[in-house]
């Protein structure tokens, strides 16, 4: 049943450009918007892997997206590097940067991480603005028309498929990871570091690994975004966008890939619908986050899965009388 739904959605996404032919040139805009959404969904999935799956908060995810985007853009501008290589280089750069953050992060108590990643996001922004010889400062970098193995990929339809395939691959990779050893270790350290260590999970190394994988994905998304938009500038990767990714994960329901994608849909919709009034989308998303945490801890994912029994029972609290004392 659910399997069929997934395939149906996938087929619908794949044939969408054909349906959009009817829109004539309007499809240029719509395909761009949906492609952009696919890329954001990859970032949401990457953040969900880190926050929802391994329990580490990040408020600077767009810092990794920025690193990926700038790496791809700079390589493209200077050396004419095309899309696949630019994307991988972006992903690698973000992963390396995450090492710098990740090592101290493992030694920090949970909430420090939120603050340190927040600082990372701000710093990337400031450096991109300052180091204009490399990044073009606030005037950003224009990329050449994207190419895939020598074939022009610059049409809206082709970039649409690039983004769609990237999203599907990201979903499959993350799904594969969460269903095998390392993914289970991520969940284990989120639930109980002590028990995870007792089961043989190296806690610090696994946390750093989660950080690296998450940054790699976010960086790859950044690389694709640079080619999709044809332009990167520091303003696009500020705290505001980190908060949007954060909202996607929380509203969608942490620890679930469909949740992250659903969250991305909701956040994107709210952002666009509420754009006319200053502060409205921020207030709506903030309010939704509060409501979700208070009343629907499972987020969208939890709302849609009403059939399942609610997991309310918790293990007996500390200090409860033992059977024999």
């Amino acid at each position: 049943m659910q399997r069929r739904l997934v395939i149906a959605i996938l087929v619908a996404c794949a044939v969408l450009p054909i349906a959009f032919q009817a829109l004539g040139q309007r499809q240029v805009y719509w395909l761009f918007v949906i492609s952009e959404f696919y890329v954001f969904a990859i970032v949401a999935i990457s953040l969900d892997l880190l926050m929802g799956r391994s329990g580490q908060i990040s408020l600077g995810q767009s810092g990794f997206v920025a690193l990926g985007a700038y790496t791809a853009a700079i390589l493209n501008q200077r050396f004419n590097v095309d899309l696949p290589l630019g994307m991988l280089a972006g992903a690698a750069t973000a992963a390396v940067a995450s090492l710098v953050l990740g090592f101290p992060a493992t030694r920090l108590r949970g909430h420090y991480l939120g603050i340190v990643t927040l600082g990372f996001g701000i710093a990337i922004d400031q450096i991109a603005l300052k180091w204009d010889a490399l990044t073009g400062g606030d005037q950003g970098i224009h990329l050449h028309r994207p190419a895939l193995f020598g074939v022009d990929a610059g049409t809206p339809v082709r970039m649409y498929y690039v983004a769609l395939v990237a999203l599907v691959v990201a979903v499959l990779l993350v799904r594969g990871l969460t269903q095998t050893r390392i993914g289970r270790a991520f969940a284990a350290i989120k639930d109980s570091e002590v028990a995870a260590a007792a089961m043989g999970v190296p806690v610090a190394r696994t946390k750093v690994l989660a950080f690296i994988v998450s940054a790699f994905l976010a960086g790859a998304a950044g690389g694709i975004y640079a080619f999709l938009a044809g332009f990167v500038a520091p303003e696009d990767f500020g705290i505001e966008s980190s908060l949007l990714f954060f909202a996607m994960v929380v509203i969608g329901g942490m620890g679930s890939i469909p949740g992250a994608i659903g969250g991305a849909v909701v956040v994107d919709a709210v952002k666009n619908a509420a754009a006319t009034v200053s502060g409205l989308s921020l207030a709506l998303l903030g309010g939704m986050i509060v409501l979700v945490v208070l009343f629907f801890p499972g987020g969208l994912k939890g709302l849609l899965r009403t059939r399942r029994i609610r997991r309310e029972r918790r293990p007996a609290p500390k200090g409860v009388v033992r059977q024999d004392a």
Partner: protein
Amino acid sequence: MLEARGVTVRFGGLVAVNALDLDVPDRGIFALVGPNGAGKTTLINALSRVCPVAGGTVRLGDVDVLSLPPHAAVSAGIARSFQRAELFPSLTVLENLLVGLHSTMQTGLSGALMTPASRTEEQAARARAERVLRDLDLWEVRNAAPADMPYGHQKLLDVARALVSEPALLLLDEPFAGLTEAEAPRLLACIRAAGERCAVLMIEHHFELLEGIAQRMTVMDFGQKVSEGTPASMRTDPEVIRCYLGTGRHRTAAASAC
């Protein structure tokens, strides 16, 4: 064969375990008893590398246990359960067991790519975990969330998760605490079977229960070994009666574990 010599654990000024010697043979069930705050859980924590040790040596076969990082205790053959079942609520019952197999597996990030090697290993691990689940009659609930199970089953799963890696030394911290009469027999059978294959060191208060299964027991108080022997001989030991059966001083219940 576990050999602990002069193991000492300190918390600030408090000496929780004081120069303790302990020998555990290769097979059988061995018990740690003593009043609350005697340092039993702390000893288990020290042996499983959860808490830092101030002095002493611990050898398991040829391995210097205290030199290992916490997560390496399992691959050295030491697995443990927890006083309050410390399960992973966001994983299913089966996945909880698979985490217990973490150190026996190699698959890294390649799991994301579903390489043939990682798939073969994953299938083997699942088969192994499923066998244990079937033995313990948890097969039906393998895809449930641990929190949805009755507490007795959670404790059982906690023990099974330690067992699944087939350790040389199994450390159990009050496995029967919180269990109902109806739930206990299954766990008892499971521990008994484990004792056939490896050494089980368990903390337990229930004297009659121990008489049935434990070969030897070590009595601890104030972080020290007070007495050692078979359960039968312990019944009459005056030291044990004084401090364990509670005809002595008053104690505060708030003494913390580790």
